[in-house]
């Protein structure tokens, strides 16, 4: 059995950030994402950057681990920077490479946009790094709760999400088992032209789907036998609670945002 399966990229820990209420985390991140676009000078940017970096430090997740996780995004960040360098034509000409003029405004603009991009990705990835998927599901259910008034199936959606999360490792194990079973019958998944390799996936997917449907049917029956009748009148074991800690953290965040707005006019 493969025990190394981690859902999402959650890194277990017990830091301040880990212990925060997931709804609070989502709110703060949501606001942060908006306010990043209000920063307009060195000071306001450095306030937001320090906030992001200090938060990252508090999580105690090794910085190198996070940077490695951002590898696919580095390309985009650098690309954005270079694009600005080429396109923007403001300020004075700094230097000239092979007849290609680089403006000072371009350098600043490119740097600012790349930094903004980096901050956005860093802060949002902290959510999945410090929050278990089931906590995120609970938080989403709670945040969407008002939508129940317009008959949006909030409880059903959350239940579907949590059941999918629960079955991801099970289905991965099953995929592994089926692919070994098919490989032992001579199916080649790894070599040969792309067309053959895509074809080889069919004998993997068909049994997987058949078994997934069978599982769904049995699970539905088991749930019914255990008295599941939808969200009405249900109580919940997992409970989200806003504690003093959450409120303090939110106040600190508001101060940071206020500081950012204050320094905007410098």
């Amino acid at each position, binding site marked *: 059995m493969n025990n190394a399966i981690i859902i999402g990229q959650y890194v277990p820990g017990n830091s301040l950030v880990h212990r925060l209420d997931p709804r609070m985390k989502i709110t703060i991140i949501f606001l942060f994402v908006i306010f990043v676009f209000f920063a307009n000078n060195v000071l306001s940017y450095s306030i937001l950057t320090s906030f992001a970096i200090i938060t990252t430090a508090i999580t105690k997740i090794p910085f190198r681990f996070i940077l490695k996780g951002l590898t696919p995004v580095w390309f985009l960040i650098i690309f954005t920077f270079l694009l600005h360098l080429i396109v923007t034509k403001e300020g004075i000409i700094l230097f000239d490479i092979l007849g290609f003029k680089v403006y000072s405004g371009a350098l600043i603009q490119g740097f600012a946009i790349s930094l903004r991009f980096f901050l956005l990705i860093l802060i949002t990835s902290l959510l999945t790094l410090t929050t278990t998927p089931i906590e995120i599901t609970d938080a989403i259910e709670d945040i969407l709760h008002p939508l129940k008034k317009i008959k949006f199936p909030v409880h059903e959606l959350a239940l579907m999400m949590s059941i999918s999360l629960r079955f991801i490792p099970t289905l991965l194990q099953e995929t592994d088992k089926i692919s070994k079973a098919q490989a032992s019958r001579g199916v080649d998944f790894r070599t040969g032209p792309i067309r053959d390799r895509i074809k080889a996936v069919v004998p993997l997917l068909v049994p997987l789907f058949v078994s997934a449907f069978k599982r769904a049917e*049995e699970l539905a029956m088991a749930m019914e036998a255990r*008295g599941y009748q939808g969200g009405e009148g249900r*109580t919940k074991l997992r409970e989200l609670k806003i504690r003093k800690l959450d409120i303090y953290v939110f106040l600190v965040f508001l101060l940071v945002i206020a500081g950012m707005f204050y320094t905007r006019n410098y």
Partner: protein
Amino acid sequence: MREKFIEFRNVSFRYGDNEPWVLKNVSFDIYKDEWVAIIGHNGSGKSTIAKLMNGLLYPQEGEIIINGLPVNDKHVWEIRKFVGMVFQNPDNQFVGTTVQDDVAFGMENRGVPREEMILRIEEVLKAVRMEEYRLTEPHRLSGGQKQRAAIAGVLAIKPEVLILDEATAMLDPRGRKEIMQTVAEIQQQSEISLITITHDLQEVVKAERVIVMNNGKVWDEAKPREIFAKKDELRKIGLDVPFVAVLADELIQNGIMIKNEPLDHDEILEELWTLHSKM
């Protein structure tokens, strides 16, 4: 005389109008606090009986009465409150993302307050010896552990009858032993009726009564010892006779007088070593 808890009165069932009958005119009673084993080969209708007891299926003919209530659309949710069921596949009945979430599922459905849930989770996990696994995810558990978690989930709703529908069929011998042991303990400690549905004669040993199903009919209803004595007939209806029973038979044929039909290794050992002292 004990109180009747489940009554099957001339029950017939089929999955569709043109399908063959799965159950034909089946009648039996199950009493309070009793352990009954229902045994039969594949397709004998034994699993259908389990689903009928929980209102997952309704019979076309006849009547099922549980705790004084007829099983129908009106009473089905009431009945599910005191009929707990554990299914065959350990993976396909595990709803929660951790053991504790799964144990809580049944209670959440019934609106049990959170404080009480926490107490009951503690209690039932102790009963099935799974305390250390409270926060473990299902894919890190063995089949036997998953089934024990499922039993805990059922016990948490305090049912009056626990039905195990081939709950050990997909487990290895060790997991099977764990489950049978857990179940026997629970039966002793609490006042709960237990119905174990199986095709393995070895598992009926501890039951008080055995109902043998064959081709949708009740073939026999007796104590385990009496059932074990009918080896040849059992073989004819497609059931495997346990080794101990076969051994006892061979011994008798070879002139060693065994008086009681032995149910397990200890009993046959007892018979053998006291053989001469009796004479």
